[in-house]
C-alpha cells in the first residue's frame, strides 16, 4: 500500500530572460541550493547520498522562457503554500519567481501528469506576408488529416504524424509602434513577447508575428514548437524563422479536457 503524502506542495514558477540559458539540470541544482538557503524543511531522499525530494514538470529547452513551470516538493512538516512562496522567493535568483503554490492532495507527480503546453512564439518571415495569408495557411494546415514530419532521435530518423498533437494555433500581429491595422483579437498582447520585442526592436528582422498555440507535451506525446514551424515551412513553402519561444502554460489531464496543474479546470 502506498503512503499518502500530506506535506507536499506544487509550485508554479517563472523562468525569465535572465535565466533562460540555464540547462534543466542546472535549474534543478539551483532550486536545491535555494531551498538550503531558505532553511525550509525540505524532505531528503533516504540512502547513501541524500538529496532533496523535488520533481519538476516538463524540462524546458535552453533559451526558452516560461511563466508556467511546475515543481512538486515534499517537506518534513506541514507547510502553508503562502509561507512557502514568500520564504523561497527571497532566495531565488533574478528571473525565477514562484507565482503560485497549492497543497498537493493527490499522489500524482507533475512529471508524469503533463499532457499539453501552450506557447507564444515570435516568428519572422523573410518575405512580406499579410496576416490574412497566414490565417489561410493555418486554416488549411489544421484541416489536414495528417502532417508527417521527420523527427530525429538519438540514432534514427523516424516519421511522425504531428497533426493529433496540435490542438490550436492562432496568428497575432506585433504592433510595436501602435499602428491599429488589425482587429484587437489579432494583436499580440502577451507581455513576455512584447517586452522582448521592445528591448531588441532595433536588432529584430521585419515581418514579425506571434504564433499562439496549444500542443501535446509530456511523456506520451510531445511536440516542440520548432517542429511545428518546420512543418509549416515544408508544407506551404514559407520561410518562417523562430526568433523567440515562450511557454505560457503547462497542462495536465487529457487533450479533450486539459486541466491546470494546480487543479483548476482549463477549459
Amino acid at each position, binding site marked *: 500500500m502506498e503512503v499518502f503524502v500530506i506535506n507536499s506542495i506544487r509550485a508554479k514558477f517563472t523562468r525569465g530572460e*535572465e*535565466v533562460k*540559458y*540555464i*540547462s534543466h539540470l*542546472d*535549474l534543478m*541544482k*539551483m532550486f*536545491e*541550493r*535555494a*531551498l*538550503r*538557503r531558505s*532553511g525550509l524543511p525540505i524532505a*531528503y531522499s533516504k540512502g*547513501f*547520498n*541524500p538529496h532533496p525530494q523535488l520533481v519538476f514538470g516538463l524540462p524546458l529547452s*535552453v*533559451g526558452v522562457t516560461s511563466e508556467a513551470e511546475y515543481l512538486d516538493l515534499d517537506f518534513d512538516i506541514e507547510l502553508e503554500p503562502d509561507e512557502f512562496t514568500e520564504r523561497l522567493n527571497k*532566495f531565488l*535568483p*533574478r*528571473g525565477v519567481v514562484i507565482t503560485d503554490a497549492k497543497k498537493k492532495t493527490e499522489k500524482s507527480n507533475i512529471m508524469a501528469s503533463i499532457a499539453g503546453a501552450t506557447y507564444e512564439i515570435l516568428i519572422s518571415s523573410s518575405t512580406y506576408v499579410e496576416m490574412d495569408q497566414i490565417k489561410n495557411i493555418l486554416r488549411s494546415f489544421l484541416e489536414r488529416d495528417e502532417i508527417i514530419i521527420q523527427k530525429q532521435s538519438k540514432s534514427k530518423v523516424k516519421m511522425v504524424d504531428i497533426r493529433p498533437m496540435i490542438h490550436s494555433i492562432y496568428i497575432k500581429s506585433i504592433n510595436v509602434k501602435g499602428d491599429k491595422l488589425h482587429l484587437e483579437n489579432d494583436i499580440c498582447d502577451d507581455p513576455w513577447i512584447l517586452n522582448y520585442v521592445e*528591448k*531588441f526592436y532595433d*536588432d529584430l528582422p521585419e515581418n514579425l508575428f506571434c504564433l499562439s498555440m496549444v500542443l501535446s507535451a509530456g511523456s506520451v506525446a510531445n511536440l516542440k514548437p520548432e517542429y511545428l514551424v518546420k512543418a509549416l515551412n515544408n508544407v506551404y513553402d514559407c520561410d518562417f524563422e523562430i*526568433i*523567440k519561444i515562450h511557454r505560457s502554460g503547462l497542462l495536465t489531464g487529457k487533450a479533450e479536457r486539459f486541466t491546470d496543474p494546480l487543479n483548476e479546470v482549463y477549459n
Partner: protein
Amino acid sequence: MNIKISDKILQNVEKPSRYTGNEWNSIHKNLDEISIRFAFCFPDVYEVGMSHLGMKILYHVLNERPETYCERVFAPWIDMESKMRENNIPLFTLETQSSIRQFDFVGFTLQYEMSYTNIINMLDLSDIPILKSERTREHPFVCAGGPCAYNPEPLADFVDFFMLGEGEEIINEVMDAYIVWKDADLSREDFLRKITEIEGIYVPEFYVVEYNHDNTIKSVLPKNNIYPEKIKKRIIKDLDKVFFPDKIIVPFTGIVHDRIMLELFRGCIRGCRFCQAGFIYRPVRERTSDKLLELAGKLQQSTGYEEISLTSLSTSDYSQLKELTEGLICEMEPKKVNFSLPSLRIDSFSLELMEKAQKVRKSGLTFAPEAGSQRLRNVINKGVTEEDLINSVSTAFNGGWSGVKLYFMLGLPTETFEDIEGIAELCKKVVDVYMQTPKDKRGKGLSINVSASSFVPKPFTPFQWEAQDSIDVLKEKQMHLKEKIKNKYIKYSWHDPYVSFLEAIFARGDRRLGKVLITAFRKGCKFDSWGEHFKHEKWLEAFEQCGVDPHYYANRKRNYDEILPWDHIDVGVTKKFLKKESEKANSEQITSNCKEACSGCGVVSFDGGVCN
C-alpha cells in the same frame, strides 16, 4: 556602453550561461551612484575563473565600497569570441553587459603564465590599446596581481601597474588614491607616480632595464629616486581580522571547484624546493578554528552549497584541524553538507576524517611523492620517505580504498635515469601493498594513475637558477618511465613538454618577451593551457621573428651573481637564503620545516605569522 547580446549569438555558442550572469549573490548596483568602475578580468573561461578564491574575495572587497562597482569579465571561449568579432561586440562584463573600455580600472589576475596571450586578446577585444604606452586619459588603468605578478617583467609593456602580494588592503588604498586623482585634473602619470607611495605597487614604466652584451641584465633602476629600488609584497598579518566575504557567488553552471572554499591559512611551512607557492606566500598565517566555523556557517547559509572544501597548501599542517573538523561535522551533518579535504597527508586520522566528512566512493586518493628516489626527494626537500608513502597507501587500502593517484615530476635538478626507474619501482611496491592487503578489507579493482609532469624552474625558489631539461631529454625521460612502468594496474600519463617549455620561458622571462607575446597573439595563439588550442609551431615562429632565443630563458643555467629579472621584487624570502637552499639541494641535504626550526629565509621581516 550597454551591450545587447542577441539570442541568435547565445543560441549558437557552447554553454551560453557563461555569458549571462545573474547568479545568486552577484552584485547589482545603481550605476548613477558609482564613481569607480572596476572590471575584474580572469584570463580564462568562466568555469576556471569562477573557481578562483582570490577573485571571489576581491570582488566583494571592492563591492563593499559604496562608490565602487566591481564587475566580472572572463575570456570568451573561441566560439563566442568569433561571434563577438563578427558582430563588433566588445568584451563585456557579466553584471551589466557593459563594454569595459570606459571603465576606470581593468584588473587581471595572473594565475599561470599560459594565460598571458589571453590577456592581450582580452585587451584587444575591449578596444583598449594593448600597449600601455598608447593609452590616454580616456582609457582605463590596466593593472594586475596574483602569483605570476612576482615576475611581472614579461607583461611590463601591457600593464600600467602591478599589485604585489595579498590584495585585500592594497586594492582599497589604490581606490582611495584614485578618488583623489579623478577629482583633480591630473595626468595618468600623476596617478601612477602617486601610487608608487603605496607599498606593493610596481609601475614598470618608472624603471629602466639595461642589458650586458651577453644578454644578461646589467641593471634595473628606478628612473627617479622617489621610486623604491625594491618593491615589497603585501601580506595580511592577521587573517582573523581581514575582510572575508560571508557570501560568494553561486554559479548556475558547473564550474571546476563548485563549492565553498574555506581558506584555513596562507603560506606553507614545508619549503619544497621546486614549489613557488611554498616561498612566495610565506609566512604561514592561520585563521583560528572559531573564526573558520563562523565563516563556514555564514557562507553555507548564504550560498546553499552542499559542499565545503578546506583549502590551503597543506591541510594536515593546520594546527587546529581536529577542532575545526569536529565542529564542521557537528554543524554540517544535519544540513546534509559534506566537506572535502584536499592536500591532506594520508594517515589513519585523516582517513577516518574523510570517511566521516565525505560521502564519496572510495576510489581515488592522491599522493605526490614528486620523485622516485630518496636521494632526489632530499634534493627537492620533499619531506616524504618511501616508508611514509607505503604506510599511507597501506592504511588507505586497509580502509577500503582501491585507487590511488601518484604525482611525479620529471627533469628535476640532478635527476638521473636511476631516479626515474625509482618511480617505476615505487609504483610497483604500491601494487604489492594492495596485493598483500586482506581481500575483505581492500576495495575491489585496483587502479593506479601515475602522472608525470615536467619540472619548470620558477622565480623565488632555490631552483630559480636551474636549466630546464630540453624537450628532447624530457621526452626521452617520459618514454623511459613508460617502458619501465608497464603493469596492468598502472595507468601512466604525462604532460606536454612543449607547454612546460613555454611556461619555463615566461616564468623567468624579462621585458624582451613582450614583443614575442604580441607576435604570438597576432599569429592566433590563445588559451595556451588548453591542449587543443596550444600552437607550438606558431610560438616558435614568434620567437624566431622577434629574434629572441627561447632556450636562453628555459634551458640556461644562471650564475648565482647574475641579476635576475625579478631581483627588484621583494617577497621577503632573501636571495641569500635561496642560494643556501640551492647549495643544500646539490649536496642532498634537507631543511627542516618552519615549525620545527626557523631556517632563516628572511620573511621574518614581515613581522607576522608562524615566525613570531
